[in-house]
């Protein structure tokens, strides 16, 4: 396993609304390994976007520590802080909102180049912008470089957004639902391009999505982290996690993915949740937050103790971490019957 480039340690984050705190992230711990492909998966409101923003340093956590290249980012000052700033870039979900409508493509890519003194003079900047646009397959470049965002398609805009993130030579790119608003037909192309970028430019990619099927395809060589209501419930190598999901929530998610073969899909046993309602963040249940919906709910355990991430005790050849007390104890799961 390679070195972690970033680490989150017991991160909490809450937002204030009407003088009450809404906990969005609770006790999140994980590491981002260098040059890996990490997918964070979860339904909307599970805190995956907040996690992404905290990684990129755009949002301070309410408590907890963030390490970049082994250093606590709150202790970074001056050029070290700038280095961290530039090294972690974010790509937003909405390609229509993430590009300033008043600038041309050349302008928005050259601003950071000039600001951080990567280039000198207008024509050096233009050359670099040209390179970047070629890197993200926006060719022929002369058709794009002097256009305004509204003159481009959604897919093209998302490529510009990626090129802009690359201007500062980042080592980590956080892609927040970056393909979900793009047409399905060009999604694969975008994803393929991002994977190539990782190999060509040595960047670590943290990919955030609500679509487990996409994560499975995209991070087959990397890792997947599953989030539920502000907590990370399972994280590990994709192939292992997909083959033998351990957390009940992951199992439910996987059972919902349709397979290309209809026979297979029909044969799949669809797991029934006990409740379809997601609890509100303001009124989180005690114990494991998934217990009101969990089909394998164990009374007296799940509604009392908060599970923490850990490798199940009796599963020695397994590297996937799970936050589920019955699973960690190695108990056989039984469907709950009231």
């Amino acid at each position, binding site marked *: 396993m390679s070195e972690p480039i970033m680490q989150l340690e017991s991160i909490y984050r809450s937002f204030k*609304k*009407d003088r009450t705190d*809404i906990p969005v992230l609770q006790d999140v711990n994980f590491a981002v390994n260098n040059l890996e492909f990490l997918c964070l998966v979860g339904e909307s409101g599970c805190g995956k976007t907040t996690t992404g923003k905290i990684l990129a340093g755009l949002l301070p956590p309410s408590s907890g520590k963030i390490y970049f290249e082994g250093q606590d980012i709150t202790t970074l000052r001056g050029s070290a802080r700038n280095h961290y700033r530039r090294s972690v870039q974010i790509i937003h979900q909405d390609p229509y909102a993430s590009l300033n409508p008043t600038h041309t493509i050349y302008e928005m890519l050259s601003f950071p180049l000039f600001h951080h003194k990567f280039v000198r003079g207008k024509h050096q900047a233009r050359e670099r912008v040209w390179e970047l646009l070629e890197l993200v397959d926006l060719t022929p470049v002369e058709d794009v470089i002097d256009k305004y965002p509204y003159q481009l398609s959604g897919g093209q805009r998302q490529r510009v957004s990626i090129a802009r993130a690359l201007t500062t030579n980042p080592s980590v790119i956080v892609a927040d639902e970056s393909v979900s608003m793009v047409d399905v037909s060009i999604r694969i192309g975008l994803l393929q391009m991002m994977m190539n970028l990782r190999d060509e430019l040595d960047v670590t990619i943290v990919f955030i999505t609500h679509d487990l099927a996409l994560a499975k395809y995209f991070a087959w060589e990397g890792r997947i982290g599953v989030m539920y209501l502000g907590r990370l419930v399972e994280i590990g190598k994709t192939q292992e996690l997909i083959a033998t999901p351990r957390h009940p929530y992951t199992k439910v998610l996987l059972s919902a993915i349709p397979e290309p073969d209809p026979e297979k899909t029909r044969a799949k046993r669809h797991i029934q949740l006990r409740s379809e*309602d997601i609890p*509100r*963040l*303001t*009124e989180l249940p005690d114990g494991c937050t998934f217990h009101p919906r969990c089909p394998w709910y164990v009374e007296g355990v799940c509604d009392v103790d908060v599970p923490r991430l850990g490798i199940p005790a009796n599963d020695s050849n397994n590297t996937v971490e799970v936050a589920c007390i019955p699973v960690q104890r190695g108990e056989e799961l039984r469907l709950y019957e009231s």
Partner: protein
Amino acid sequence: MVSQTSPMLEDAKPESATERIIERAMKIYQNYILRVLLQAVLTVWAVTSFTFILIRLMPGNPIDVLVEQILVQEGISYEEAYARVASSFQFDPDASTLDQYLDWLGDLIRFDLGESITSPGTKVIDEIARFLPWTVFAVGAGLLISFILGIVLGMAMAYYRNSPLDHLLSLFASFITGIPNYIWGLLIVIILGIQFGLFNVGQLRGTYASDVEIGFNYPFISSALAHAALPIITYVISTLGGWMLNMKSSTMSVLNEDYVNVAEARGLRDSRIISAYVGRNAMLPLFTQLTISIGFVLGSGVVIEEIFVYWGLGHYLFASITTRDYTSMQGVFLILTMTVVMANVLADLGYGLLDPRVRVSGEK
């Protein structure tokens, strides 16, 4: 963002849960009212204190102004004139501003606005009570008429957008808003009153004819209406265009909302869609503007009432400014500020009543 309805479903006893929610909402709402009211009182205090100081800083005090008048008219010596004026006024020009301020504040807490300086024995509160109703009548009627007209015409413009009617009304609205209200006043006087001789401007001085008896009788009401007609028309014309254009853009954005399309798809009657779905939602933002414009129109009443010689609060304020009648000015400013602030408070609370989203969360 976060759904507001789900807790009801979770609780085992829905009745008590509903009650609990209502109770909690009421609590937030009451706290909210308290907070808004406290803010309002503080604002009124700050503004009146500020104007108190400003008014004292104006060159010339009431005595000086009258002494100068007497000097010009009667040609007596300055000392004589000064002694005469000073003895008749309840005003000590040598008292420090701070003492005057504390006195005034002390009286104010007992709801006493003091006596007029230039006409001793007249209580400012009585004077205000005499002038204020006429201004409230004229401004209120003017705003009400123009608001209703503007909303109807604005919705019509949005419904028939791009038709000749829309273009015509747009141009009309821009045209009438562009012209300042006192200019409208003068235009009405010059063109209708003098060139066409539709009415006699001279007879419309004051708020009602001197030979009628105040009360609920025809001569009084018709005379009061006739005297207020010109200011009211002026207020209507000068504010109508704004309502029309705002209502048009507001309606157009509401017409694009999904719930209107759904309502149409459900086959609801047009009249119901217009009133319950479009009109109500489109009018919401206009209520805030209505309160702002109350303050503005009241303020501009100074010029309008001067032009039409309409004896309302603006006329009274102007008269007290020219004679430097500190207590009267102070009283009028207090009333005007209170009106503006109260209008804002009512808008905040009223907005809450109209918009359930604000009502439940207690947000502004």
